[in-house]
């Protein structure tokens, strides 16, 4: 049900070797249908937190609980990396097919799902292309299609558009919001851009470094999904300032630490 807790982090910490805590005592409840941004400077543990939620990194202490899936899905959790992370030797459609192939679905059985995922990101015409033939934005779309092809409830994205130009980035922002809205996804979107976090999310978790921790948890109360017009409105500026101030506060605090 929308609004029910779907991910719960309870006093989660992560230490690599003997270094300082990459993530310290992070507690967070994420509800189904939330679009959450993890916002913070680089090195504050955003990727680490995301990977622990995905089960790609073990926690050092604490617990992460994910509510069991009810619907029909091969894999409940999609992950989009900062780089497109495509297999260069495989075509676009084979890249998107991968999660289903690994789940034991036959190529024929997956064909319509793969085609559907490609259609949703506007890449139908490029099904047979190789990654090197695509632009950066298109590669990222393939990566999103691959994450969506298993019909996940949860989508984790680690600074997916940081390397793209402004135009492509804003287009892809709208695509992600549309997909999240149509499929009722719960999204955790890691970014270091205040504007991106304000435009995309219903809730912004501000993180601070050394040790990596949650510094602030802000709700963006403007109705979601938002229009392009809102992006250039007074309201948007006000929200951006509010979140920016919170982020600055954590950065200043960090500065005093040193």
């Amino acid at each position, binding site marked *: 049900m929308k609004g029910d807790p779907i991910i719960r982090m309870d006093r989660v910490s992560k230490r690599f070797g003997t270094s300082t805590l990459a993530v310290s005592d992070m507690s967070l409840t994420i509800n189904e249908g939330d679009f959450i941004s993890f916002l913070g400077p680089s090195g504050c543990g955003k990727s680490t937190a995301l990977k622990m939620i995905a089960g790609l990194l073990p926690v050092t202490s604490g617990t992460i609980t994910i509510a069991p899936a009810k619907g029909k899905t091969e894999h409940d959790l999609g992950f989009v990396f900062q780089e497109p992370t495509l297999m260069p030797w495989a075509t676009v459609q084979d890249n998107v097919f991968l999660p289903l192939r690994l789940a034991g679905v036959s190529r024929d059985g997956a064909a319509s799902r793969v085609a559907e995922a490609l259609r949703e990101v506007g890449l139908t015409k490029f099904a047979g292309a190789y990654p090197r033939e695509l632009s950066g934005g298109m590669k990222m779309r393939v990566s999103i299609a691959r994450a969506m092809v298993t019909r996940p409830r949860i989508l984790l994205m680690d600074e997916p558009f940081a390397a793209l130009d402004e135009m492509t980035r804003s*287009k892809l922002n*709208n695509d992600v*919001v549309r997909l999240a809205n149509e499929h009722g996804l719960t999204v955790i979107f890691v970014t270091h851009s205040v504007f991106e976090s304000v435009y995309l999310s219903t809730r912004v978790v501000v993180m601070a470094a050394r040790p990596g921790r949650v510094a602030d948890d802000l709700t963006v109360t403007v109705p979601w999904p938002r229009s392009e017009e809102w992006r250039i409105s007074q309201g948007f500026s006000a929200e951006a300032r509010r979140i920016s101030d919170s982020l600055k506060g954590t950065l200043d605090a960090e500065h005093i630490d040193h």
Partner: protein
Amino acid sequence: MQSISTIDPVDDAAPMNIEAMARESREKLLTWALPVATLLAAIGAWEWLVWAYQIPHYLIPAPSLIAKTLWTDGPSLMGSAWFTVRLTFWSLSLAIIGGVLLGAVFALSRAVEMSLFPFAVILQVTPVVAIAPLILIYVDSTFAALLICAWIVGFFPILSGTVIGLRSADHNLRDLFTLYRATPWQRLRFLLAPSALPSFMAALKVAGGLSLIGAVVAEFVAGAAGQNTGLASRIIESSFRNEIPRMFAALVLVSMLGIVIFLLTTWASRRVLGHWHESEIRRDQ
């Protein structure tokens, strides 16, 4: 919701045009014509120098004489060439099988790698010429003994190429496979093996040439024992009898064999990697 995405412009798809095609065919011609012309010129110069300075054929035979010897001694030389071809082919095949299998085991288990790696290195750093006499003593069949010598030479590049290749898989892709709970077999089949192909193919190019060298060198060492019939034996034999043109003829055959191996491995590498890997992609200027 508004602004359903449209496709961003494809910046890589270069328009086909006549000019580009003409340039491409010109380039293709040059890549063949230039080396062939240089080679012919060099052979011509050789022929002329031998003729102009009256160099006796027992010192340096003219290319025309070498060609004639190749023709007259053809049957016996071809038999020897076939022996060397078989030796090279078998040693390379076994090097591939052994190198890939052991490489896969190394990549799967650090412990196995650490315990077996010294042996592989010892095998590699000890010159075959030094081990060959021992092998010839221990192994009855001369062909098998030669095979082992040639195999040792080709095996190591394949092993290290395979290990490096299997390790080179992108770490984010590894994470992706972990996320989707890939089985070890799926990981090998869909991620590690394709990732390993570029460095494996590079190793294959090296090992192909080395297998031929191994086959020839091994036969040189075994030469004293007599009863073998590869091209190296023909060279030694001709040297004893002072048949320099025949020696050159055998040498030409060895070189040609090397060139064929080079062309084959290059072609294979292009076949396998051509559609995706940087090393084999041709770019328009």
